[in-house]
Protein backbone atom coordinates (compact mmCIF):
# COMPACT_ATOMS: atom_id res chain seq x y z
CA UNK A 1 0.00 0.00 0.00
CA UNK A 2 1.26 3.32 -1.02
CA UNK A 3 1.31 5.90 1.64
CA UNK A 4 3.39 8.88 2.18
CA UNK A 5 4.07 10.93 5.19
CA UNK A 6 5.51 14.31 4.58
CA UNK A 7 6.53 16.56 7.38
CA UNK A 8 6.77 20.26 7.25
CA UNK A 9 10.50 20.00 7.66
CA UNK A 10 10.65 18.18 4.36
CA UNK A 11 8.79 20.90 2.55
CA UNK A 12 11.66 23.20 1.96
CA UNK A 13 13.29 21.32 -0.86
CA UNK A 14 14.70 24.08 -2.97
CA UNK A 15 13.18 24.26 -6.40
CA UNK A 16 16.63 24.35 -7.87
CA UNK A 17 16.74 20.68 -7.01
CA UNK A 18 13.54 20.22 -8.96
CA UNK A 19 14.80 21.44 -12.28
CA UNK A 20 16.64 19.70 -15.05
CA UNK A 21 15.76 17.35 -17.81
CA UNK A 22 13.96 14.15 -16.96
CA UNK A 23 15.45 10.84 -17.89
CA UNK A 24 13.47 9.13 -20.59
CA UNK A 25 13.33 5.43 -21.23
CA UNK A 26 11.48 4.15 -24.24
CA UNK A 27 10.30 0.58 -24.18
CA UNK A 28 9.77 -1.21 -27.48
CA UNK A 29 6.25 -0.61 -28.70
CA UNK A 30 3.88 -3.47 -28.02
CA UNK A 31 1.00 -2.69 -30.28
CA UNK A 32 -2.22 -4.58 -30.02
CA UNK A 33 -3.44 -3.15 -33.31
CA UNK A 34 -2.74 -3.98 -36.90
CA UNK A 35 -1.40 -0.64 -37.96
CA UNK A 36 2.37 -0.55 -38.10
CA UNK A 37 4.11 2.24 -36.27
CA UNK A 38 6.62 4.14 -38.36
CA UNK A 39 9.78 5.13 -36.56
CA UNK A 40 9.16 8.72 -37.54
CA UNK A 41 5.70 8.63 -36.01
CA UNK A 42 7.01 7.08 -32.82
CA UNK A 43 9.66 9.76 -32.49
CA UNK A 44 7.18 12.55 -33.13
CA UNK A 45 4.70 11.21 -30.61
CA UNK A 46 7.28 10.87 -27.87
CA UNK A 47 8.76 14.27 -28.61
CA UNK A 48 5.33 15.93 -28.51
CA UNK A 49 4.29 14.07 -25.39
CA UNK A 50 7.41 15.11 -23.50
CA UNK A 51 6.84 18.65 -24.72
CA UNK A 52 3.36 18.50 -23.29
CA UNK A 53 4.82 18.05 -19.83
CA UNK A 54 6.50 21.41 -20.16
CA UNK A 55 3.26 23.21 -20.87
CA UNK A 56 1.51 21.14 -18.21
CA UNK A 57 4.11 22.18 -15.66
CA UNK A 58 3.97 25.82 -16.67
CA UNK A 59 0.17 26.00 -16.74
CA UNK A 60 -0.27 24.42 -13.32
CA UNK A 61 2.51 26.49 -11.79
CA UNK A 62 1.50 29.83 -13.29
CA UNK A 63 -2.24 29.14 -13.27
CA UNK A 64 -2.49 30.05 -16.93
CA UNK A 65 -4.77 27.69 -18.84
CA UNK A 66 -3.82 29.16 -22.21
CA UNK A 67 -0.40 27.54 -21.84
CA UNK A 68 -2.11 24.21 -22.41
CA UNK A 69 -3.45 25.01 -25.84
CA UNK A 70 -0.45 23.92 -27.86
CA UNK A 71 -0.17 20.44 -26.45
CA UNK A 72 -3.54 19.45 -25.04
CA UNK A 73 -6.94 19.04 -26.60
CA UNK A 74 -10.36 17.73 -25.69
CA UNK A 75 -10.92 16.20 -22.29
CA UNK A 76 -7.30 16.51 -21.20
CA UNK A 77 -7.19 20.19 -22.01
CA UNK A 78 -10.56 20.88 -20.39
CA UNK A 79 -9.66 19.09 -17.19
CA UNK A 80 -6.28 20.66 -16.79
CA UNK A 81 -7.72 24.09 -17.53
CA UNK A 82 -10.43 23.49 -14.96
CA UNK A 83 -7.81 22.53 -12.40
CA UNK A 84 -5.85 25.66 -13.16
CA UNK A 85 -8.95 27.77 -12.66
CA UNK A 86 -9.77 26.00 -9.41
CA UNK A 87 -6.23 26.49 -8.15
CA UNK A 88 -6.40 30.18 -8.94
CA UNK A 89 -9.65 30.51 -7.02
CA UNK A 90 -8.18 28.69 -4.04
CA UNK A 91 -5.02 30.77 -4.11
CA UNK A 92 -2.77 27.81 -4.67
CA UNK A 93 -0.57 26.59 -7.45
CA UNK A 94 1.25 23.36 -8.11
CA UNK A 95 4.74 22.72 -9.34
CA UNK A 96 5.33 19.46 -11.11
CA UNK A 97 8.82 18.36 -11.95
CA UNK A 98 9.10 15.19 -13.94
CA UNK A 99 12.25 13.19 -13.23
CA UNK A 100 11.74 9.91 -15.07
CA UNK A 101 9.55 8.78 -17.90
CA UNK A 102 9.32 5.13 -18.86
CA UNK A 103 7.29 5.15 -22.04
CA UNK A 104 5.70 2.46 -24.08
CA UNK A 105 3.34 2.86 -27.01
CA UNK A 106 0.64 0.24 -26.70
CA UNK A 107 -2.01 1.11 -29.26
CA UNK A 108 -2.13 2.79 -32.66
CA UNK A 109 -5.65 2.82 -33.97
CA UNK A 110 -6.12 1.24 -37.38
CA UNK A 111 -7.19 4.48 -39.02
CA UNK A 112 -4.25 6.34 -37.47
CA UNK A 113 -6.37 8.84 -35.56
CA UNK A 114 -5.33 7.94 -32.05
CA UNK A 115 -2.31 6.54 -30.32
CA UNK A 116 -2.05 5.35 -26.76
CA UNK A 117 1.01 5.18 -24.59
CA UNK A 118 1.75 4.24 -21.03
CA UNK A 119 4.07 6.43 -19.01
CA UNK A 120 5.47 5.13 -15.76
CA UNK A 121 6.55 8.48 -14.50
CA UNK A 122 8.32 9.78 -11.43
CA UNK A 123 7.73 13.39 -10.58
CA UNK A 124 7.76 15.81 -7.70
CA UNK A 125 4.53 17.55 -6.93
CA UNK A 126 4.85 20.67 -4.86
CA UNK A 127 1.72 22.44 -3.65
CA UNK A 128 2.04 26.10 -2.78
CA UNK A 129 -0.37 28.46 -1.08
CA UNK A 130 0.66 31.64 -2.84
CA UNK A 131 4.42 31.28 -2.36
CA UNK A 132 4.35 29.18 0.76
CA UNK A 133 5.22 25.56 0.10
CA UNK A 134 2.64 23.29 1.68
CA UNK A 135 4.08 19.99 0.59
CA UNK A 136 6.56 18.40 -1.75
CA UNK A 137 5.92 14.82 -2.63
CA UNK A 138 7.65 12.47 -4.97
CA UNK A 139 5.06 10.56 -6.92
CA UNK A 140 5.34 7.38 -8.93
CA UNK A 141 2.38 6.95 -11.19
CA UNK A 142 1.29 5.11 -14.28
CA UNK A 143 -0.30 7.41 -16.79
CA UNK A 144 -2.50 6.28 -19.61
CA UNK A 145 -2.17 8.83 -22.38
CA UNK A 146 -4.03 9.09 -25.66
CA UNK A 147 -2.74 11.43 -28.32
CA UNK A 148 -4.38 12.48 -31.55
CA UNK A 149 -2.78 14.12 -34.56
CA UNK A 150 -3.45 17.77 -35.27
CA UNK A 151 -2.16 20.04 -37.99
CA UNK A 152 1.49 19.96 -37.04
CA UNK A 153 1.85 17.84 -33.95
CA UNK A 154 0.39 15.15 -31.76
CA UNK A 155 -1.70 16.53 -28.92
CA UNK A 156 -2.69 14.89 -25.68
CA UNK A 157 -6.41 14.07 -25.54
CA UNK A 158 -6.50 11.78 -22.51
CA UNK A 159 -4.06 12.23 -19.62
CA UNK A 160 -5.05 10.02 -16.74
CA UNK A 161 -3.13 8.32 -13.98
CA UNK A 162 -4.31 4.79 -13.54
CA UNK A 163 -3.72 2.11 -10.98
Amino acid at each position, binding site marked *: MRRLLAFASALIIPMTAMTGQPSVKIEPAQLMSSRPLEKQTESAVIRDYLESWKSFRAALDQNQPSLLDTDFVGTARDRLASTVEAQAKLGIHTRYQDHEHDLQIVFYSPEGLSLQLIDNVVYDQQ*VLDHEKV*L*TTTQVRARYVVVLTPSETRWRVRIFQ*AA*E
Partner: protein
Amino acid sequence: MRNIQKLCVSAIFTMGASAAFSQSGQMSMPHSITAGASFSIPTSGTGTGVLYITGPGQALRRDVQLGQPVAFTQGDLYCAGHYLATLVVGASTGTEEFDVIPASRPKTLSFLARPSRISIDLHDGISGAAYVFDAYDNLITQPLPVSFVLSGQYGAAQSRTITTRNGVAWTGMDSTSKLGKAKFVAQAGGISSTRVIDLVPGDPCGLTISARQNGAKLLVETSPVHDCKGNPIPDGTIVTFTEAINGVQSTADVPIKQGIARVELPAQSGATISAASGVVAGNAIHWGGR
Protein backbone atom coordinates in the same frame (compact mmCIF):
# COMPACT_ATOMS: atom_id res chain seq x y z
CA MET B 1 -2.49 -5.74 -6.05
CA ARG B 2 -4.73 -3.03 -4.94
CA ASN B 3 -8.13 -3.66 -3.63
CA ILE B 4 -10.50 -1.46 -5.52
CA GLN B 5 -13.38 -0.44 -3.37
CA LYS B 6 -16.74 0.33 -4.81
CA LEU B 7 -18.25 2.95 -2.63
CA CYS B 8 -21.81 3.40 -1.64
CA VAL B 9 -23.19 6.82 -1.14
CA SER B 10 -22.70 6.90 2.58
CA ALA B 11 -19.42 5.08 2.70
CA ILE B 12 -16.96 6.20 5.28
CA PHE B 13 -13.47 4.93 5.11
CA THR B 14 -11.62 3.89 8.14
CA MET B 15 -8.08 2.82 7.77
CA GLY B 16 -6.29 0.94 10.47
CA ALA B 17 -2.81 1.90 11.47
CA SER B 18 -2.99 5.22 9.75
CA ALA B 19 0.10 7.32 10.02
CA ALA B 20 -0.02 10.23 12.36
CA PHE B 21 1.62 13.14 10.71
CA SER B 22 1.20 16.17 12.83
CA GLN B 23 1.03 17.07 16.43
CA SER B 24 -2.39 18.54 16.14
CA GLY B 25 -4.25 16.32 13.79
CA GLN B 26 -4.25 13.37 11.46
CA MET B 27 -6.32 11.92 8.67
CA SER B 28 -6.92 8.51 7.22
CA MET B 29 -7.08 8.64 3.48
CA PRO B 30 -8.73 5.83 1.58
CA HIS B 31 -6.34 4.13 -0.74
CA SER B 32 -8.60 4.66 -3.71
CA ILE B 33 -11.92 6.30 -4.40
CA THR B 34 -14.36 5.65 -7.18
CA ALA B 35 -14.80 8.69 -9.38
CA GLY B 36 -17.82 10.71 -8.42
CA ALA B 37 -18.68 8.69 -5.32
CA SER B 38 -19.26 10.34 -2.00
CA PHE B 39 -16.72 9.63 0.68
CA SER B 40 -15.43 10.89 3.98
CA ILE B 41 -11.96 11.26 5.36
CA PRO B 42 -11.82 10.63 9.10
CA THR B 43 -9.62 12.97 11.05
CA SER B 44 -8.46 12.97 14.62
CA GLY B 45 -7.14 15.54 17.00
CA THR B 46 -8.51 18.89 18.00
CA GLY B 47 -8.62 22.29 16.44
CA THR B 48 -9.03 23.25 12.82
CA GLY B 49 -7.11 22.79 9.64
CA VAL B 50 -7.37 23.00 5.90
CA LEU B 51 -7.42 20.06 3.55
CA TYR B 52 -6.24 20.40 -0.05
CA ILE B 53 -6.87 17.76 -2.68
CA THR B 54 -4.60 18.40 -5.64
CA GLY B 55 -3.87 16.57 -8.83
CA PRO B 56 -3.84 17.26 -12.54
CA GLY B 57 -7.56 16.58 -12.73
CA GLN B 58 -8.94 18.66 -9.89
CA ALA B 59 -8.08 20.96 -7.01
CA LEU B 60 -10.30 21.12 -3.95
CA ARG B 61 -10.11 22.75 -0.55
CA ARG B 62 -12.01 21.98 2.63
CA ASP B 63 -11.95 23.57 6.05
CA VAL B 64 -11.47 20.83 8.60
CA GLN B 65 -12.66 20.47 12.15
CA LEU B 66 -10.22 17.93 13.51
CA GLY B 67 -11.87 14.93 15.01
CA GLN B 68 -14.69 15.18 12.51
CA PRO B 69 -14.75 13.45 9.13
CA VAL B 70 -14.31 15.60 6.05
CA ALA B 71 -17.23 14.87 3.79
CA PHE B 72 -17.17 14.87 0.02
CA THR B 73 -20.53 14.51 -1.66
CA GLN B 74 -21.32 12.63 -4.84
CA GLY B 75 -19.68 14.30 -7.79
CA ASP B 76 -17.21 16.38 -5.79
CA LEU B 77 -14.18 14.39 -6.88
CA TYR B 78 -14.83 12.86 -10.26
CA CYS B 79 -11.67 13.05 -12.38
CA ALA B 80 -9.77 9.79 -12.33
CA GLY B 81 -6.11 10.15 -11.50
CA HIS B 82 -3.51 10.39 -8.82
CA TYR B 83 -3.95 12.96 -6.06
CA LEU B 84 -2.34 14.39 -2.99
CA ALA B 85 -4.37 15.07 0.11
CA THR B 86 -2.58 17.71 2.14
CA LEU B 87 -3.82 18.59 5.59
CA VAL B 88 -2.49 21.84 6.95
CA VAL B 89 -2.82 22.38 10.65
CA GLY B 90 -1.07 25.48 11.84
CA ALA B 91 2.54 25.17 10.76
CA SER B 92 2.32 21.42 10.28
CA THR B 93 1.45 19.70 7.11
CA GLY B 94 0.75 16.09 6.30
CA THR B 95 0.30 14.61 2.89
CA GLU B 96 -0.99 11.32 1.61
CA GLU B 97 -1.40 9.97 -1.89
CA PHE B 98 -4.47 8.31 -3.25
CA ASP B 99 -6.10 7.37 -6.53
CA VAL B 100 -9.43 8.20 -7.98
CA ILE B 101 -10.41 5.28 -10.14
CA PRO B 102 -13.00 5.33 -12.92
CA ALA B 103 -16.42 3.89 -12.22
CA SER B 104 -16.72 0.40 -13.61
CA ARG B 105 -19.97 1.08 -15.44
CA PRO B 106 -19.57 2.48 -18.95
CA LYS B 107 -21.49 5.57 -19.88
CA THR B 108 -20.13 6.48 -23.27
CA LEU B 109 -18.19 4.87 -26.06
CA SER B 110 -15.94 6.73 -28.39
CA PHE B 111 -16.20 4.54 -31.45
CA LEU B 112 -14.01 5.15 -34.48
CA ALA B 113 -14.95 3.09 -37.52
CA ARG B 114 -13.14 3.29 -40.82
CA PRO B 115 -13.71 3.60 -43.66
CA SER B 116 -17.20 4.97 -44.07
CA ARG B 117 -17.27 3.67 -47.65
CA ILE B 118 -15.61 0.49 -48.79
CA SER B 119 -15.64 -2.02 -51.62
CA ILE B 120 -17.37 -5.29 -51.00
CA ASP B 121 -15.55 -8.48 -50.17
CA LEU B 122 -12.43 -7.11 -48.57
CA HIS B 123 -10.84 -9.14 -45.81
CA ASP B 124 -10.32 -7.07 -42.66
CA GLY B 125 -11.21 -4.02 -44.68
CA ILE B 126 -13.27 -2.43 -41.92
CA SER B 127 -11.80 -1.50 -38.58
CA GLY B 128 -13.33 -0.24 -35.40
CA ALA B 129 -11.75 1.02 -32.21
CA ALA B 130 -13.74 1.80 -29.10
CA TYR B 131 -12.63 3.77 -26.06
CA VAL B 132 -14.85 3.20 -23.03
CA PHE B 133 -15.66 6.00 -20.58
CA ASP B 134 -17.58 6.27 -17.36
CA ALA B 135 -20.21 8.88 -16.52
CA TYR B 136 -17.50 11.45 -15.79
CA ASP B 137 -15.58 10.91 -19.03
CA ASN B 138 -12.87 8.93 -17.31
CA LEU B 139 -11.30 6.25 -19.44
CA ILE B 140 -12.22 2.93 -17.84
CA THR B 141 -8.89 1.19 -17.70
CA GLN B 142 -10.07 -2.01 -16.05
CA PRO B 143 -10.66 -4.75 -18.67
CA LEU B 144 -14.17 -4.73 -20.10
CA PRO B 145 -15.71 -6.82 -22.87
CA VAL B 146 -16.74 -4.85 -25.94
CA SER B 147 -18.82 -6.54 -28.61
CA PHE B 148 -18.53 -5.47 -32.22
CA VAL B 149 -21.24 -6.45 -34.68
CA LEU B 150 -21.25 -5.72 -38.40
CA SER B 151 -24.53 -6.47 -40.12
CA GLY B 152 -25.54 -5.76 -43.68
CA GLN B 153 -28.87 -6.05 -45.44
CA TYR B 154 -28.06 -9.59 -46.49
CA GLY B 155 -26.18 -12.46 -44.98
CA ALA B 156 -25.11 -13.27 -41.48
CA ALA B 157 -23.77 -10.62 -39.16
CA GLN B 158 -20.15 -10.74 -38.10
CA SER B 159 -19.66 -10.53 -34.38
CA ARG B 160 -16.62 -10.34 -32.15
CA THR B 161 -16.10 -9.66 -28.49
CA ILE B 162 -12.86 -8.04 -27.51
CA THR B 163 -11.68 -7.22 -24.00
CA THR B 164 -10.35 -3.73 -23.53
CA ARG B 165 -6.76 -3.10 -22.62
CA ASN B 166 -6.09 0.25 -21.02
CA GLY B 167 -9.57 1.32 -21.96
CA VAL B 168 -9.57 0.51 -25.65
CA ALA B 169 -10.63 -2.41 -27.79
CA TRP B 170 -10.42 -2.76 -31.53
CA THR B 171 -11.28 -5.23 -34.23
CA GLY B 172 -11.16 -5.76 -37.96
CA MET B 173 -14.12 -6.95 -40.01
CA ASP B 174 -14.57 -8.21 -43.54
CA SER B 175 -16.76 -6.19 -45.86
CA THR B 176 -19.68 -8.28 -47.05
CA SER B 177 -20.20 -9.44 -50.63
CA LYS B 178 -23.41 -7.46 -51.12
CA LEU B 179 -23.92 -3.79 -51.75
CA GLY B 180 -25.74 -1.48 -49.41
CA LYS B 181 -25.51 0.00 -45.97
CA ALA B 182 -23.99 -1.99 -43.15
CA LYS B 183 -24.40 -1.16 -39.49
CA PHE B 184 -21.30 -1.40 -37.37
CA VAL B 185 -22.17 -1.46 -33.69
CA ALA B 186 -19.88 -1.40 -30.68
CA GLN B 187 -21.44 -2.26 -27.35
CA ALA B 188 -20.14 -2.35 -23.78
CA GLY B 189 -22.08 -2.61 -20.57
CA GLY B 190 -25.39 -1.81 -22.22
CA ILE B 191 -24.03 1.24 -24.00
CA SER B 192 -23.79 1.08 -27.75
CA SER B 193 -22.58 3.24 -30.57
CA THR B 194 -23.42 2.70 -34.24
CA ARG B 195 -21.67 3.67 -37.42
CA VAL B 196 -22.93 3.12 -40.95
CA ILE B 197 -20.60 1.70 -43.55
CA ASP B 198 -21.46 2.14 -47.21
CA LEU B 199 -20.59 -1.01 -49.13
CA VAL B 200 -19.91 -0.22 -52.76
CA PRO B 201 -18.93 -2.39 -55.72
CA GLY B 202 -15.39 -3.52 -56.19
CA ASP B 203 -13.29 -2.76 -59.23
CA PRO B 204 -14.83 -3.40 -62.64
CA CYS B 205 -14.41 -6.94 -63.80
CA GLY B 206 -14.31 -8.18 -67.41
CA LEU B 207 -14.46 -4.73 -68.94
CA THR B 208 -15.37 -5.07 -72.63
CA ILE B 209 -15.88 -2.49 -75.33
CA SER B 210 -17.40 -2.50 -78.80
CA ALA B 211 -17.25 0.06 -81.60
CA ARG B 212 -19.35 1.04 -84.61
CA GLN B 213 -18.85 3.70 -87.18
CA ASN B 214 -21.02 6.77 -87.14
CA GLY B 215 -19.97 8.91 -90.12
CA ALA B 216 -16.44 10.15 -89.55
CA LYS B 217 -16.61 9.05 -85.95
CA LEU B 218 -16.44 5.82 -84.07
CA LEU B 219 -18.97 5.28 -81.34
CA VAL B 220 -17.19 3.22 -78.69
CA GLU B 221 -19.04 1.93 -75.66
CA THR B 222 -18.62 -0.53 -72.88
CA SER B 223 -20.87 -3.39 -72.02
CA PRO B 224 -22.70 -2.84 -68.73
CA VAL B 225 -19.90 -2.52 -66.23
CA HIS B 226 -19.96 -4.85 -63.22
CA ASP B 227 -17.62 -5.92 -60.51
CA CYS B 228 -16.54 -9.53 -60.19
CA LYS B 229 -19.59 -10.30 -58.02
CA GLY B 230 -21.94 -8.99 -60.69
CA ASN B 231 -22.75 -5.76 -58.86
CA PRO B 232 -23.17 -2.81 -61.20
CA ILE B 233 -20.44 -0.23 -61.02
CA PRO B 234 -22.00 3.07 -59.92
CA ASP B 235 -22.60 5.85 -62.38
CA GLY B 236 -19.90 8.44 -62.35
CA THR B 237 -17.08 5.93 -62.21
CA ILE B 238 -14.52 6.98 -64.79
CA VAL B 239 -13.62 4.82 -67.78
CA THR B 240 -10.61 5.94 -69.77
CA PHE B 241 -10.75 5.31 -73.52
CA THR B 242 -7.50 5.35 -75.42
CA GLU B 243 -6.98 5.56 -79.18
CA ALA B 244 -3.48 4.93 -80.46
CA ILE B 245 -2.29 5.26 -84.03
CA ASN B 246 1.20 5.66 -85.45
CA GLY B 247 2.66 6.12 -82.01
CA VAL B 248 0.27 8.93 -81.16
CA GLN B 249 -2.07 8.33 -78.28
CA SER B 250 -5.16 10.25 -77.25
CA THR B 251 -7.36 9.58 -74.26
CA ALA B 252 -10.83 10.48 -73.09
CA ASP B 253 -12.09 10.09 -69.51
CA VAL B 254 -15.78 9.31 -69.50
CA PRO B 255 -18.09 8.71 -66.55
CA ILE B 256 -20.35 5.71 -66.56
CA LYS B 257 -23.99 6.65 -67.15
CA GLN B 258 -26.73 4.13 -66.59
CA GLY B 259 -24.14 1.40 -66.30
CA ILE B 260 -22.37 2.14 -69.59
CA ALA B 261 -19.58 4.47 -70.65
CA ARG B 262 -19.55 5.67 -74.26
CA VAL B 263 -17.47 8.05 -76.30
CA GLU B 264 -17.05 9.22 -79.87
CA LEU B 265 -13.55 8.99 -81.30
CA PRO B 266 -12.20 9.85 -84.74
CA ALA B 267 -12.60 6.86 -87.05
CA GLN B 268 -9.00 6.35 -88.11
CA SER B 269 -8.04 3.30 -90.04
CA GLY B 270 -5.34 1.34 -88.16
CA ALA B 271 -6.18 2.76 -84.77
CA THR B 272 -6.13 0.63 -81.65
CA ILE B 273 -8.83 1.48 -79.17
CA SER B 274 -8.84 0.29 -75.59
CA ALA B 275 -10.51 1.11 -72.30
CA ALA B 276 -9.57 0.92 -68.64
CA SER B 277 -11.15 1.76 -65.32
CA GLY B 278 -9.05 2.00 -62.22
CA VAL B 279 -6.54 -0.79 -62.40
CA VAL B 280 -8.66 -2.88 -64.76
CA ALA B 281 -8.01 -2.90 -68.50
CA GLY B 282 -10.56 -4.05 -71.02
CA ASN B 283 -10.20 -5.55 -74.47
CA ALA B 284 -8.63 -3.72 -77.42
CA ILE B 285 -10.18 -3.10 -80.81
CA HIS B 286 -8.17 -2.64 -84.01
CA TRP B 287 -10.16 -0.47 -86.38
CA GLY B 288 -9.79 -0.99 -90.19
CA GLY B 289 -6.31 -0.97 -91.71
CA ARG B 290 -4.37 -4.17 -91.98
